[in-house]
Structure formats: C-alpha cells, structure tokens
C-alpha cells in the first residue's frame, strides 16, 4: 500500500505565542516550529501500518514556506520513505487544490491528514482535499488496516465508542489522537533523514487555481493574563466564610 501523509508545520506547542504589532498575526521570529500534533498521529498510524507490512511506502507532503522542510525532515526521521515540498503561501481551498495536484502526481492508495492543524484549528483542508480529489473521506480516524478480501477497514471515533467503516478504493482519512503516541525518531533515522533529498516545487509551477473564498483574520488578541490567587487568612472561620462569599458574589460574580 502507498500511503501519503499531508502535514503542516505549525508553532510548537511549547512556544508562548505573541501577537504581532499588526494585531492580525503572531510573532514568528525565533520560535520553534514542529509538525502539527494530529499530523504526527497520522504519520504514526501510517508507520505502524508499515511496521506490520514492510511492503508499505509512506510519503510525506507539505505545501508551505521553505522552513517547512524541517517538518518533512522530522517525518523522514520518524521513518517515512520520502518527502516532497511545494513552496508557497496558500490557504483554504487554494491549499487543498495545490495538495490535490501534488497528490495526483503520486497516485497513493490512501491519503492521511491530521483532523485539524493546531495553529488555526479550522479542520478544513483535509476534507477540502478529499473534495478536490473527488475521493471519499472519513474523519476522526484512530486506526485502519487492510481488510480481509481487499479494501481498507477504518476505525472512526464517535461519541462514546467507534464505528468501523470500509473503503474499497482510494480514500482520505483525517486522523484523531490515537492510543499510540507518535514515535520518537531513532538516531540512525535522524542521520538518514539528514541525507535524504527533499524534492521541491514552486506553488506557482503547479498551475492551480488560487481563487475562491478566503477567510481573513481581522484581529488577534492574547488571552487576559491570569491574576494572582488570594488566600484569606485573617479572622475566624465565620468571618472568613462571609468574606469568601462576598468576594465570590461581588468580585468574581459567580454566586
């Protein structure tokens, strides 16, 4: 089976995000970038399939700025066979079309995406890519395997349980957090990944239509700073209780 994982490079979850002076974007200078967490789970699912069936190939693909090459390097270190980057800025439908053009050149049996990227949490591109490819898609997938008698058996998470789906032909899955944490790359994996070629295309060379509805961020605001806690100490228990009730009612306004 040939599996293709589409991934997005996002600010690492350890980064304390700061809003840029334009109040519409974040400061990206000097921050650590990483593969979006759900995309990492997608890679892990694909690699588990490869562990079980060595005939599997796993490819990684991204459309994004040149720095996103590092995310592909990480995917290769984890164990992906090859990776490719389309360099350029795209979003929404335009991004899905660009990915679709790149996917069509590769004819995978299965395309995996994270269910949503951790930076914008839109959860849009995976489904839009399925639409652009004209493929069926299943969302919130936690496991899949080759089904007896052909096709792919897919476990999809639902409230309080799971459903088992089956796909007979090429399918796109958006992946949910699954039981197994994404693997930590082995050192030989990291070394090999450093030496691998990552072919690059320019977004403009793909000739895809970038027109379409585009969402625009109007404003960004950091969450309010957390105030310090207060410990009530002075006075007897009754007075403390009364003071606590007063503060909860008048200041916190929760009573």
């Amino acid at each position, binding site marked *: 089976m040939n599996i293709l994982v589409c991934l997005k490079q996002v600010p*690492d*979850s*350890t980064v304390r995000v700061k809003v840029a002076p334009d109040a519409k974007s974040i400061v990206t200078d000097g921050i650590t970038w990483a593969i979006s967490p759900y995309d990492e789970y997608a890679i892990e699912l694909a690699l588990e399939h490869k562990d079980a069936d060595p005939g599997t190939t796993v490819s990684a693909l991204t459309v994004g700025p040149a720095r996103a090459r590092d995310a592909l390097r990480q995917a290769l270190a984890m164990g992906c066979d090859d990776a490719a980057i389309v360099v350029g800025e795209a979003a929404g439908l335009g991004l899905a079309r660009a990915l679709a053009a790149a996917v069509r050149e590769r004819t995978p049996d299965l395309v995996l995406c994270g269910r949503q990227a951790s930076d914008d949490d839109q959860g849009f591109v995976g489904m839009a890519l399925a639409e652009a490819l004209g493929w069926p898609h299943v969302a919130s997938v936690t496991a899949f395997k080759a089904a007896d008698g052909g096709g792919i058996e897919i476990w999809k998470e639902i409230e309080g349980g799971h459903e088992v789906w089956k796909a007979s032909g090429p399918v796109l899955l958006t992946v949910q957090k699954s039981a197994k944490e994404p693997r*930590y790359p082995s050192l030989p994996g*990291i070394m090999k990944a450093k030496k691998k070629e990552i072919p690059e295309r320019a977004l403009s060379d793909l000739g895809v239509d970038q027109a379409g509805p585009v969402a625009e961020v109007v404003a960004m605001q950091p969450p309010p700073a957390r105030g310090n806690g207060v410990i009530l100490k002075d006075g007897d228990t009754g007075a403390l209780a009364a003071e606590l009730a007063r503060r909860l009612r008048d200041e916190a306004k929760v009573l």
Partner: protein
Amino acid sequence: MISPTGSFWTGGAILLFLVILGFGAFLWRAWTLVRYLRLGRVRELDRTDRLPRRLRDELVVYLGQRKLLKRPYWIRGAAHALIFWGFLVITYGTADVLLDGIAGLRLPGTETGVYVWTVDLFAVAVLASIVLAAIRRAFLRPPRMHVALDGYVILGLIATLMVTLLLFENAGVSAGALRTGQAVPPIAALLPLRFSGASAGVVFASAWWLHVITVLAFAAYLPQSKHLHIVTTLPNVFFRSTRPRGALRLVENIEEQESFGAATLRDFSWKQLLDGYTCTECGRCSDSCPALATGKPLDPQRIVLDIRDQLLREGGMLLASAEAAGTAPAQLHERKPEELWACTTCAACVEACPVTIEHIDKIVDMRRNLTMMESAAPPEAQRALTNIERAGNPWGEPREARGEWAAGLEVPTLAEKPDAEYLYFVGCAASYDRRNQRVARALAAILKSAGLSFAILGREETCNGDPARRIGNEYLWQQQAQANIEAFGRYGVRKVIASCPHCFNTIANEYPQVGGRYEVVHALQLVERLIADGKVHLSDAAARETIAYHDPCYLGRHNGIYDPPRRVLDALSGVRRVEIEPHHRERGFCCGAGGGRMWMEEKVGQRVNHRRIDQLRAAQADASKVASGCPFCLIMLEEGVGAKGLQEQVKPVDVLELVAARLETPTTAARETS
C-alpha cells in the same frame, strides 16, 4: 616453610608434573576468558591514564580492602580482609614450598621467625574467618547474597589448605624436617598433636602433599568460579574509570556511528566484561539499590551477572564467528526493559561494590540502545526528550519564559552585564517549577547580599542535558551541551554557579568531554565559602528547630560534596542538624528522581520518595524540616510528605532558603522566600 626432602626424581618430578597440570589448567581457562574479553568492541578512553592514582587504588582498594571495611559491613569485611591478607602471606609460603619441592630453591625470608609467626597467625585467623563465613552462609544468609555450592567449595578448599598447613608444620617439626637456622612454626608447634618417629614422617608427608595438591586443585578450579575475583580484582581496580563518577562515557563522533548503545555482548567494552568476571556475588549493590528496595524489577547484581553468564555461555560461539551477534543482553529481551528504566543512577551500587564494578555505565549503554536505536524509551520519557529538544526543558515550558522567575529581582542577564564574574546557571527546575523558583530567588538574594558579581543567561540558557543523557539520548545531550557551551562562549564565561546538582555534575564533569571547561561550584559550596569569609551576614535571632539533611545523590555520592551543605546548616543559628540514620552520606537514599526518573511514571512497588519519607520519620521523627540541595529532591520530598499527610509535621526545604531567611539585610527576595 618446610618441605619433605628428597631428590628431584623421588618427589620433585611428580610435583613438577602436578604443578604443570594445575597451573596449566588455570592458564588454559584464563586465556579463554581473556579472549572473551576481547569480544567487547567499544573503545575505552580512560583506562590507563593517571598511573599514580591507579597504583594508589591498588594499595587502598585491593591490598587495603578499603571498600570492604565500610559500614554496615565492617565485621564481615574484616573477616574477608583477614582471609585475603592471609592468602597473600601464605601464597608466598606456598610458592616457596613448590619451588623448594621441585628444585630446592628457597624464597628470601621464609625461614625467619617473623615470617613463620605471620604465617601461623594468619592460618589461625583465616580458619576462624572461614568458620564465620560458613556459619553466615548456612544460618544467617543475607537476603541478597547469591548462596551457591561454589561458595562452600571455596571455603572448604581454603580450610583444607589451612588445616594441612598447620598439620604438616606440626608433624614436620617432629619429623625433623626443619633445616638448621629455620624458625620453628610457633602456633603449629603448640597444637596438642605429638607425632613421633615414623608416624611423624608419614603425617608430615601426607599433609604436605595434600596441601600442595589442594593448592593446585584450587588453581585449576579458580577460573571456573566466582572466586576468580582474587585474580581479576587486581586488573579491575587498576583499570577502573578515572572519569569523575558522575560522568557517563562519551559517544565519540556520534554523527558518524551506525549503531548506538549495547544491544549485544559485542557492544560492551572489555572492561565492562571484566566487571562480570570480577563480581563476587556478594550482593552489596543489590542491598543498597533504592529501586530493588521498593519492589522494582531492577537488581544491579543481576545486571552484572547476566552479562557475565551470557559471555561464558556464548563467548565461544561469538569468537568462532565474527558474524554471530549472539542474543541481546538479558535486560533487553528475557526480562523486560523495565529493569533498566527503574534505575535512578543514584550510584548506591557503585559506591557499595568492593571490587569497583561500574553498574551505571552498563545500564545506560543498554538504555542508549533502547532510546537511540529502538525509539523504545517509555512514552513519558520520550515526551521529556521531545520537550528538551523543542523547548530546552523537559517539562515543555516556553523557552521565552526561562528567565521569568527573576522578574523584579534585578538579576541581570549576561547580555545586560557581560563582565559579570559568575554565571548562575539556573537550570530547568528552578526556572519553571514554582516551588523551586523560590530557591532560585533565595540564591539570588544571598549572592546580592554578599555583593557577588553574577548574571544569568535568561532565555539563552537551555537544559544542561542530564535527563537526556541518562535516558539514553546521548545525541540530544551533546546538542544541549553544545548549545550551552556556545552561549557560555559568547560571554567568555569562566565561572559557573549551579543550584541544581544535576546541572553542576553535568557542567563540571561532563562538559569537559565536549570541550567545555569551567570553574563550576554548587551553590552550597559557594555559600559555605561566603559565610566562612564573612561575606554573608546571618542573623542569630531564630527559633530553635531540628532539621534533617538529605544527601542528593549527584551532590553526595557522585561528587563527594557531603560536608559543605552540612556546614552551612551548622552556621545557622537555632538549627540542630540531624542525620537520617543510617541512610546518610555515602549511604544516602535516593529521592527517586535521578536518571531521568523525574519524568517517568512509577507504578510498581512503593514510590522511592515515599520510602525516603518513611526513613526520615523512623530516624528523626522530631525533625520539623528536611533540607536538601537539589530541586528534584525537593519536589520528591514534598510529594512524599504530601502523600503521607505530614505537611504539618515536616517541611521539605532547600538549604539555600534557610540561609536567605536569615540574611541580615533581607532583600525583597529573601522576605518572599521566608
């Protein structure tokens, strides 16, 4: 000593034949064992440097039996020392007997009164020790001791040697075997045995031959037995690592290697394999292991013996074919890697081992294989590694927030004050953990009150790499070390203060491996000096309190810093310092957080930190505080006290906080921490 006289052809030839047989068997087996050692492919770097220190170790550790004569083992240690010293004295006599018997040659001094007295005294002392050892094995079996037939065989052989020695000396005197000028064996002559005439000659000859044959049988048996340690301890002590104990072995040219850590016997070094031959199966390492004591699957003695047993089992096969890999060390497959992950690298085993076996290196080498080759570190440990990689700290706190603990304290960064004399390397715990931020603030207050010129790196600081290296990710450690060394280099840092013993140990003992050489002090060493020099003024009006001191492993056992923290406590008015008997100083008991365990779950057995609190309460129930000098100890002790509901009885603190609370001119920071 005395020997039956006779021409070479009547006795000497037979003796020569037996000697060739006995020593031949020894050498044959010994040569095989040496060839097995050479299966270990890992290069050793530091096994022949610093000759004077190695010779000193031979005198103190091998000849002086220093590590055997330690509490709580000193009685059995003394018995061992007597047997050992007796062995040395009597071996000289044995060599004399053999040479005399074969060729009529005598070794110098063997006929003097001093020597015969020494031999006889030791013969009796050895016999007495053997009786004690046998009783101990049979009736007072120590829980961790590996008691097998081998031990009894050895004791029996030694006893036979001593009995036949005294017997042939006694009968030899009666039989007139003494030469002119030869001193009479004093104790043997006192034995209530009186042989005369022909019977004396027969008893003398029989006992003498039995003695000699036992010696040769011993020689042949030795390399099949754990008793080989009488031979292998000599090289094992000589070649012990001269690295600081807290420093792990560097993986050189890591980017050019193809495999990492130990997955097979060949992935160890010859010295690590020699450790196996040297193990006496005494069980002291296991006795002192905090993981084993709290019900974890780890047993440090088994780590050493499993490697040895496998070497003896598979050595021949591996020698025969360079292709053969053999099976993986037992910890990697038979028993689960959980054994390896249970280790806190506290070095209690290394400290306890009388023959200088290095347990931690083996465990870390196998962890290196699991982590770097197999990506099989426990998920929580992997998370910590990823966090160090991406955020520069194992908790995954924002890199940008590293210097925020110092907000409002006017602690400059090196960027702001590049000419500061000292760099205070804060470490991840004191930078991010709220409880330990108070310790960092306390130290800052002390340093400012002493007028010391210091600065921090702020967001330019990154984890020193200790957890990564001990979890087995040498590559990540090297990256962290390089990043810090580069940052230090930007400001020409020469002197470093660390309040965390792990930072201290790594920067002082491990950074030199990758080119970072600094003058590093632990905060408590520095504060001790500042107090002694009168630079820190402490108030004396303070309520009396009893404070127990807990030795952090990476301050104490790994770096020998036992006294400075105690002296700082003693300098505080009102403080009565007490010890957590018997687990203090060299026998201090780990808090459970070392070796990367801080970031791993602990689900099997009792938690190590809970055991530590039990020990504290048993030894010093009236201590109102337990002071330490390590952020991880502090976290673990607080958790232990909390879990046991003892918050009202005993409060874990860092010694630095106690000092800051007594500063004569308290700054804002000190008031905040008090």
